[in-house]
């Protein structure tokens, strides 16, 4: 098991490294595209700044706190998108019939799909999220304790894993509907858009759904309540605030099962 994992990771690094060398050949283009990605993904945050020009707090949260939520979810989505996001190219691979070639190679199919067209320029979104998060940390008043630091680190890892799981579930769905990649966006990028704001702006039932059905509330909302030292506005158990790693693990297992089921049912294209 550990050996297989190590082999998969090594293969990922090799394949991704190959794509990095490819993009580095066109250096100017690479730098311009990375900067473009940084600015483009930053538009959402400028929109939040514009909104805050009209008010002092949103859903009971200050600009600094909203920036903290924004920065954490952006960073998690950015890393997940960079490392795993390319599995969403699966539908295209199926349509073009090139998935079959990947299946006979001696590298796990999942690793090949994640590394497919690995786009280092997506580092732009990661950088943008990190910048906003850094800025927010200078604005929010947090009584830092070792536990809070640990929860922040766990937030970044669990959040990335949750988005990664959603990417994989979306890709697995494409085994059923090859044109459906945009529907998956509703969960990944939609989940990101949802968690940029304090969940207090949504109805209580919606927050329950985001906790127990599509668990994006675990990306940053619950850990953020713990870090910011806030009581849960919906009166849900405080234990949820430390449960992000559990949610991430459950989603991972579901994604793995769905992916395997998809691969098994795949019958190639054509007549």
């Amino acid at each position, binding site marked *: 098991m550990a050996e297989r994992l190590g082999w998969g990771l090594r293969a990922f690094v090799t394949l991704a490294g190959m794509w990095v060398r490819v993009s580095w050949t066109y250096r100017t283009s690479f730098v311009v595209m990375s900067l473009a990605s940084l600015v483009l993904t930053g*538009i959402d945050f400028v929109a939040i700044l514009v*909104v805050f020009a009209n*008010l002092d707090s*949103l859903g009971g949260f200050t600009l600094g706190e909203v920036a903290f939520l924004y920065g954490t979810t952006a960073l998690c989505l950015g890393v997940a998108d960079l490392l795993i996001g390319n599995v969403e190219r699966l539908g295209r691979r199926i349509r073009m019939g090139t998935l079959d070639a990947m299946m006979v190679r001696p590298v796990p199919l999942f690793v090949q799909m994640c590394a497919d067209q690995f786009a280092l320029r997506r580092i732009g979104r990661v950088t943008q999220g990190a910048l906003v998060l850094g800025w927010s940390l200078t604005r929010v008043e947090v009584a830092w304790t070792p536990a809070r630091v640990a929860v922040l680190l766990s937030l970044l890892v669990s959040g990335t894993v949750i988005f990664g799981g959603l990417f994989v579930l979306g890709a697995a769905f494409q085994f059923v509907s090859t044109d459906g990649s945009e*529907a998956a966006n*509703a969960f990944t990028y939609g989940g990101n*858009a949802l968690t940029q704001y304090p969940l*207090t*702006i949504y109805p209580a039932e*919606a927050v329950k759904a985001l906790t127990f059905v599509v668990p994006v509330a675990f990306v940053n909302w619950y850990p953020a309540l713990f870090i910011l030292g806030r009581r849960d506005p919906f009166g849900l158990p405080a234990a949820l605030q430390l449960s992000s790693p559990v949610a991430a693990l459950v989603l991972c297992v579901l994604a793995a099962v769905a992916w395997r089921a998809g691969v098994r049912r795949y019958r190639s294209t054509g007549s």
Partner: protein
Amino acid sequence: MLYVAVAVRAFRRYSTYTAATLAGVFTNSVFGVIISFVYIAVWKENPGAGGYDVTDALTFAWLAQAMIMTVAIFAGGSTDDVADRIRTGDVAVDLYRPVSFLGWWLATDLGRATYHLLSRGVAPTVVGALLFDLRYPDSVLTALAFLVSVTLAVVVSFGVRMLVAMSAFWLLDQTGVANLAMLFAVFFSGLAVPLVLFPGWTRDVAMLLPWSAFVQVPADIWLGQRTGMRVLGGLAFQAGWAAMLLLVAGGVLRLAKRKVVVQGG
């Protein structure tokens, strides 16, 4: 008529991808719901923000979702084909045709926009209307003015996208410029946040840029924020930008024809 025939075929071409359309409608609706709750929170905090009430804001959110594909705010549409054809050299065939190059592609894009208005425009709006309390045009005349405004929005957007695509005559690849153009379109159309929320002078400047013709102007006509002569003013503003962009595009096309050797020829 030729251009109508071209538009009808573009309409049919786009209408073949049903699964993609359904997936898109789903995504637009999800984002519409998210943005609606954000706007509800914003207008609860500041009930008169930007001169809108909360119903105006919610309606704006769903109209903006409806415009994304119709007006091609995220770029794309027939001008992507143009950029591709410039890169591959197929554009030579288009330049040979005994019809106006811009007219041909504008007709294609209007055909595409009609399909996207009827599918990706109407469907999310119906979803929004079922879930939230929205505002509707107060008269048939307003509704007609809105349709004219949307058509002009597509033409303005086509003008911008065509200029971007024609940059490929010199750069061979439009991707970089197209990304930059998308940035401006998302932010200054009102899709990211209604332009009425922009603080101070930035609001006045944003209102004068061509991108305000994409969402803000049609939405204000629908909402009755513009009435009487100001409706005509909004339409004239859009028509002005449309005419100017098409004229510039025509000029750039003449330059391109003179200077550029088509690849593969």
